[in-house]
């Protein structure tokens, strides 16, 4: 899978109340959730992004609540991938389970600046910062998780079994 988009930067400990505030949790519709993506930090965020853009953040991205609505909102808003120094564990498993690509790469998330154009080849495991002409190797996930990712999510993985 190939991804190409502009980077939008966020800091450390971005929590799920920032990604999708609880007042918007009275629905399960991905489009509607997507229309409030990151509303807990920046209510205008969804108006500025283009389909395929990429979120780049610091450590512990997605901490707080278990709400799967958080990765669903990110996906629903058209964000193609989240790159972070590290992820909070429930967000991490939710992203894998619903097939939202995530990349844990401390060096990249430090060096990427807002607006940089990024190209990601998930199959080859390469992240390219086109603006800064830099390349990074993305490590594969441990076997079991990679199986779920390859299947396209946990539901798909279960249905195959």
């Amino acid at each position, binding site marked *: 899978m190939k991804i190409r988009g502009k980077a939008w930067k966020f800091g450390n400990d971005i929590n799920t*109340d920032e990604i999708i505030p609880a007042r918007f949790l*009275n629905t399960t519709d991905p489009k509607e959730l997507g229309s409030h993506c990151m509303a*807990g930090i920046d209510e205008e965020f969804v108006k500025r992004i283009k389909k395929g853009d990429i979120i780049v953040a610091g450590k512990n991205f997605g901490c707080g609540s278990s709400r*799967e609505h958080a990765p669903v909102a990110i996906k629903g808003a058209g964000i193609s991938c989240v790159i972070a120094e590290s992820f909070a564990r*429930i967000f991490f498993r939710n992203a894998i389970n619903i097939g939202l690509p995530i990349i844990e790469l401390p060096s990249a998330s430090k060096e990427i600046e807002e607006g940089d154009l990024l190209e990601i080849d998930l199959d080859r495991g390469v992240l390219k910062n086109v603006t800064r002409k830099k390349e990074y190797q993305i490590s594969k996930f441990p076997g079991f998780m990679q199986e779920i990712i390859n299947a396209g999510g*946990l539901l798909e993985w279960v249905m195959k079994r």
Partner: protein
Amino acid sequence: MGKTMAEKILQAHTTQKDVKAGDFIWAKVDLMLGNDITAPLAIRQYEKLKKKKLVDPNKVVLVPDHFTPNKDIKSAQQCKLLREFAKSHKIRHYYEVGRVGIEHALLPELGLVCPGDLVIGADSHTCTYGALGAFATGVGSTDLAVAWITGHVWLKVPETMRFVYHGTLQKWVSGKDLILYTIGDIGVDGALYKAMEFTGEVIDKLPMDGRLTMANMAIEAGGKAGLFPVDKITWNYIKKVNPKRYPRSYRKWKDLRSDEDAQFVDVREYDVSKWEPAVALPHLPSNVRPVSRVKNVRIDQVVIGSCTNGRLSDLQVAAEILRGKKVHPDVRLIIIPGTQQVYLEAVRRKWAEIFVKAGAVFSTPTCGPCLGGHMGVLADGERCLATTNRNFVGRMGSLKSEVYLSNPAVAAASAIKGKIVHPDEVM
């Protein structure tokens, strides 16, 4: 080499041999919890599956507690979906408004969790049941849907961080303060992906309510579970809430604890004797100070309740402090019992009268204000002191509001004074 408590419980739930930290396992689940926010999304995923059959309806627990009593039409629709799903799938553990409580206060009270159990919940505070010696962890809605049909969950066996508390607790210092200082020490990702294990002579004496409060907030340090070794206090509690299951459970898990030669990724020791009540300042639960160092912070609202501090002993300390006193004219005090049983007991013991006479709201159980849902949402520039678990930006309402966290004693005393104070200032 010995095993940690986490490894022992997870070993008992998988066919894989010699389970150790770092292994991925496909584990058999004893109890699967969802609420009115996360279960509708799980139902949506479940409907996509070809095989639509619950592996065991008696393992499924549905608790409409977040936006109930229904706060708006959309929430009412979500609750209706939950109710109908429970009915059509013959789910016994569905709890209707009027019988429902805040999930993590309700499940232990009903005796649904016993030591050695593996519990998953589509709610991050599912880690609460670690207080009972169960391995309990928060997952997502897709995990929940898959567990409904397969009875299993995928897990990475966590490493364990051990916390040892020495000394004696001062008056007004509780489990809430122990966990706040601990999160303050290690940070909001200090236990990321790890199990936290709480031990030491202070823990040996800590009542179950305090343990539930501590385990509840393991997630605020990024923890996967917050575990307490099983002891007399655990078994006395289990005997009371589930006398039927107690004998079998006791035989199997009597001495459930980590082996002395088990491997811990970190061991932290604290002397708590000089600790005073703690306050977490905006906007992270790790931003912790002793209450005496929080000076002249005026507050507009105080919330006493939630899955962290909505149990009987929490309301008891609030009643003790509020007896014969009045809430400050500029403060709205909202007191929310965790369950109907706690509510009823507060009425019987005449605490409800103390609260109402003091000028407080005394409400039916709900998660409402803790996550800015309803029953106490904050406006721009407002400041709240809450006994809840999170003080993120906008957590209880406006992005321009502020949330401070404390134990119920500090919260009750501060409601009287109109600013954050040590309970000694009113007692």
